[in-house]
């Protein structure tokens, strides 16, 4: 029999109060060992999906399973495989970081203490001060430690790097990559493709409760347009380039020509340019953010 996927949802839907369709018919499979980025604008339904996976809320229709365990009927065992960082983390304010982690460890039952201490050292967790005195980022670190400290098979993170400084964001990304290298699975939500493109294998883009695209980060990159800037010795005829498939002339400024072109059209662009004397040629991959925005806009047309 096929090994069950880390996450498998079929027609998963959630409607709040009979009218807010926060999630509509989500079919998603995340394989073991994968890092999956779950992207969408505010209110898209990311946290709703995650809270369904954890059994914190119940689906209106469809089902979700984690390693083959239905989150509704087998929630306790499913959660045994999970580590979770809530999007809006609330800890016990009066406890110190150490007491909070100790309490969560007892609640979990089994925790790898050596791993916990290592994580605390690595993220620089403030352990001895009451949590209410900690900054947002320092609370977030405690949340991250508790999500990883029992070496879960699947880590679900709702906007994990919110509130962290760039150095720590890097540290967290490194942690995510190492976790995936051990064959464990990561599902993380974010607003920004930029934030996940360096760690995720695949991304899903959700908008207004519907999954609008699932793709490997690599192929998203390929779809990305290049920004090409060619400086000629003397002005060239832009129509030679505009005729190429997928190429758009952005501007001509004397001898400087700006184009946007998909990867497959690059060969034609260079060959057309080669007919002239070239002073300089710069090609930059468009930020993935642009594709992302493009997809958001497409979604807008649809609904």
């Amino acid at each position, binding site marked *: 029999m096929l090994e069950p996927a880390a996450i498998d949802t079929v027609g998963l839907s959630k409607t709040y109060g009979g009218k807010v369709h926060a999630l509509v018919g989500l079919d998603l499979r995340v394989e073991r060992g994968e890092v999956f980025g779950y992207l969408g604008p505010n209110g898209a339904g990311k946290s709703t999906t995650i809270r369904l996976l954890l059994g*914190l809320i119940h689906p209106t229709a469809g089902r979700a399973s984690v390693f083959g365990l239905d989150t509704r009927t087998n929630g306790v065992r499913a959660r045994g495989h999970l580590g979770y960082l809530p999007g809006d983390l609330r800890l016990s304010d009066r406890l110190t970081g150490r007491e909070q982690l100790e309490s969560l460890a007892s609640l979990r039952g089994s925790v790898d203490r050596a791993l916990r201490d290592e994580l605390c050292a690595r993220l620089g967790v403030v352990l001895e001060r009451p949590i209410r005195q900690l900054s947002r980022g320092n609370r977030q670190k405690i949340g991250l430690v508790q999500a990883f400290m029992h070496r879960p098979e699947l880590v679900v993170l709702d906007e994990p790097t919110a509130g962290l400084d760039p150095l720590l964001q890097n540290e967290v990304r490194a942690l995510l990559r190492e976790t995936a290298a051990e064959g464990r699975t990561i599902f993380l939500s974010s607003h920004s493709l930029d934030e996940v493109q360096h760690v995720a294998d695949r991304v899903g883009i959700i908008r207004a409760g519907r999954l609008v695209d699932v793709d490997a980060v690599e192929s998203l990159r390929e779809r990305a347009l290049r920004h090409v800037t060619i400086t000629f010795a003397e002005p060239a005829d832009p129509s030679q380039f505009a005729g190429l498939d997928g190429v758009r002339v952005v501007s001509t400024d004397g001898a400087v020509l700006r184009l946007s072109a998909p990867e497959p059209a690059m060969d034609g662009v260079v060959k057309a340019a080669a007919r002239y004397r070239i002073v300089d040629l710069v090609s930059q991959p468009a930020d993935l953010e642009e594709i992302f925005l493009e997809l958001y806009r497409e979604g807008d047309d649809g609904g």
Partner: protein
Amino acid sequence: MAAELLRRGLSDHRRALAAWCVGIAAYVALVAAIFPSIESSPDFNKLVESYPDVLKSLFGIAAGGDVTSGAGYLDVELFSLMLPLLVLVLAIGSGARTLAGEEDAGRLELVLSYPLRRRDAVLAKGAAVAAEIVTVCVVVGIAIALLDPLVGLDLALGRLAEALGALAALGLVYGWLALAVGAAWPSRAPAIGVPAAAAAGAYLVSGLHELAGWLDPFRFLSPFWLVGSSPLQSGADARGVLVVVVAAVIVLLAGALLVERRDLETP
């Protein structure tokens, strides 16, 4: 593992609980300190007898009872209203805070994402509430027992234990009701309001059912009536106490079942 929630619940409320214990013990001491002057004024019985019936029945002043005896005095001054009131405020506050309050504050999100059943979480928190109620009742018992020889209350210790058992049963049924309402609806306001209103109603039924005949059939629904008034003079109704405790358990179990069905509130 859910036992951690019991530990956490007790530890989170330990300051509030300590304050309640000190406050109640001080109040008990104050009431006891007044007793010698009541005892030595035989007119006090006459004064009390001249009270309107409504007051007498609300304060559990039984016909033929003697408010200048230690037992009669404490029944009227402590066990008829003040102690149940104080214990209920503690019990309802604690029952509402430990689940509905935690959920309102968004702190249940992380706890319930751990591999434990929600119903076990409710039961563990119920155990913490019960432990707080028992602690307060034990403190009251110790305070009264220590003061007894000092001011000459001359109580029967068995009766005192019965009175405290009845008091704890009252705390339990309303504390667990608060917890169960919080388990069924994700908000602290009804978790406080429902048991508070239920307790106020039950208290009136118990106190006034003899005067207002139409209330009489409802007295069986009143925990206050079931456990019996004036427990130090005539003892608590053991069967009534048992009924109240069983009702409390049923309420708690209902809460434990209802919590599984609903969505956890978004923090």
